[in-house]
């Protein structure tokens, strides 16, 4: 069939015919995926990365956390927090739970968790470590000053070094392939400039292997497109500091 005719045939003949034959349901029943998020949230970034890894089309909805939308309050009445993944109207809350959900539903493409049970347990362990340690200790770095800040820096760097030790000489935390632990940790890279500037230290100097890993992750479209610019995050942190009267 002549190339120039094909679109016309499709538009005028094929699609209406198929619709008429009752394929409407099949054609229009694509997955509906919505992500309620807040641009500087490392937890939101995790879900963005997972969706991008799987090539899932979704609607991104920016939340104003000082004025939470009725949708957010309806979809996450318990914690009232982002990110919230909404799949065909059903909410999944907590970033690591959402990432695992994405991996389990869209299981035929780009696996995020390994298939071996022991490797999965290890991946969950380190993701849990990141959840418990990195956000809280990083927050203390930009929220404090003087003696308190020195302590906070020591703690934060200690956790990064622990993770760097676990990474070792591997390309990614799970080995050759980008996976769950990488997704859990790399969003914090967008906050590194803020931590470093507020705390007057260099993460590159302290953890060079970890920075090399960051560069490898940033080569992936899914990561590069999901993380905001570090300077933008720093400006946001400055605003927060002003708001809470820090320094």
């Amino acid at each position, binding site marked *: 069939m002549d190339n120039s005719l094909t679109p016309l045939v499709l538009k005028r003949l094929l699609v209406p015919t198929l619709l008429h034959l009752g394929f409407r349901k099949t054609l229009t029943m694509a997955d509906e995926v919505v992500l309620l998020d807040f641009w500087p949230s490392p937890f939101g970034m995790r879900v963005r990365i997972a969706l991008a890894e799987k090539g899932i089309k979704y609607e991104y909805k920016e939340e104003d956390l000082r004025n939470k939308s009725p949708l957010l309050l309806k979809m996450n009445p*318990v914690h009232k927090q982002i990110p919230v993944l909404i*799949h065909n109207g*059903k909410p*999944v*809350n*907590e970033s690591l*739970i*959402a990432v*695992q*959900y994405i991996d*389990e*539903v869209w299981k035929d493409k780009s696996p995020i968790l390994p298939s071996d*049970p*022991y490797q*999965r*347990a290890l991946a*969950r*362990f380190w993701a*849990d*470590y990141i959840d418990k340690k990195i956000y809280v200790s990083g927050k203390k770095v930009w929220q404090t000053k003087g003696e308190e800040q020195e302590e906070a820096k020591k703690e934060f760097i200690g956790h990064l070094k*622990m993770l760097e030790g676990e990474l070792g000489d591997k390309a990614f935390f799970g080995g050759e392939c980008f996976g769950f632990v990488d997704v859990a940790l790399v969003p914090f890279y967008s906050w590194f400039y803020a931590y470093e500037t507020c705390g007057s230290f260099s993460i590159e100097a302290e953890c060079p292997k970890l920075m090399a890993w960051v560069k490898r992750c940033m080569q992936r479209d899914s990561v590069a497109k999901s993380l905001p610019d570090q300077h933008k995050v720093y400006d946001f942190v400055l605003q927060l500091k002003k708001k809470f009267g820090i320094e």
Partner: protein
Amino acid sequence: MEEKQSEVKLFGTWASGYCTRVVLALKAKGIPYRYIEEDLKNKSELFLRYNPVHKKVPLLLHNGRPVSESLIILEYIDEYWNHSPKILPDDPYKRAKVRFWADFYDRKLKEGTVAIMTSRGKEKEKAIEGFLELLKVFEEGIAKDFPEKLTFSNSQPLDFLDIIVGSSACNYEAYNEAVAVVVDPKRNPLFFQWMTALKECPLMKESLPPHDKLVAKMKSFQSRSV
């Protein structure tokens, strides 16, 4: 089905609900294991070698490979020994829901019970009020997402939420006696009903710590944390 020959060791402490979780999961699956009581004031070299990061119980050692953190251990047990009874549901959305409520239970309720134990006077009253509000949220959430829990019968196999919650909440009588009345049929009838039924399950009965010993332990912990 291939017989999975393996050596399973569990390092735990008798009073820890987190350890009871692993005991319940292993027993529910019929997995033979060796239990090692760990003295937390004098941790063994073996324990520290296999659990250098958090140094906490429970620690599962499977064919010499360590798995720690109770929720992670439970998912590991369910995935490695993937015969029935299944601990987690197969459906991804239901799995997300049980993980959500397990996380809520651990981060909010379990932490809440410790906060009550370590506070006094007005602060303790505030901690109790806060806890009860969270218990209401939990109860309503479970009623909405897992209504079958409210008609739990002890002939059912234990699943993820039964194990996570029951391993500590089934000791409510000990907690009510030693610390404060927090599980009350009038305030939380549905939760109370679930725990009362769960408590009668044979596997739960044989795995929970003895009441009097637990009361004494809780009282001692409370008085030490003044």
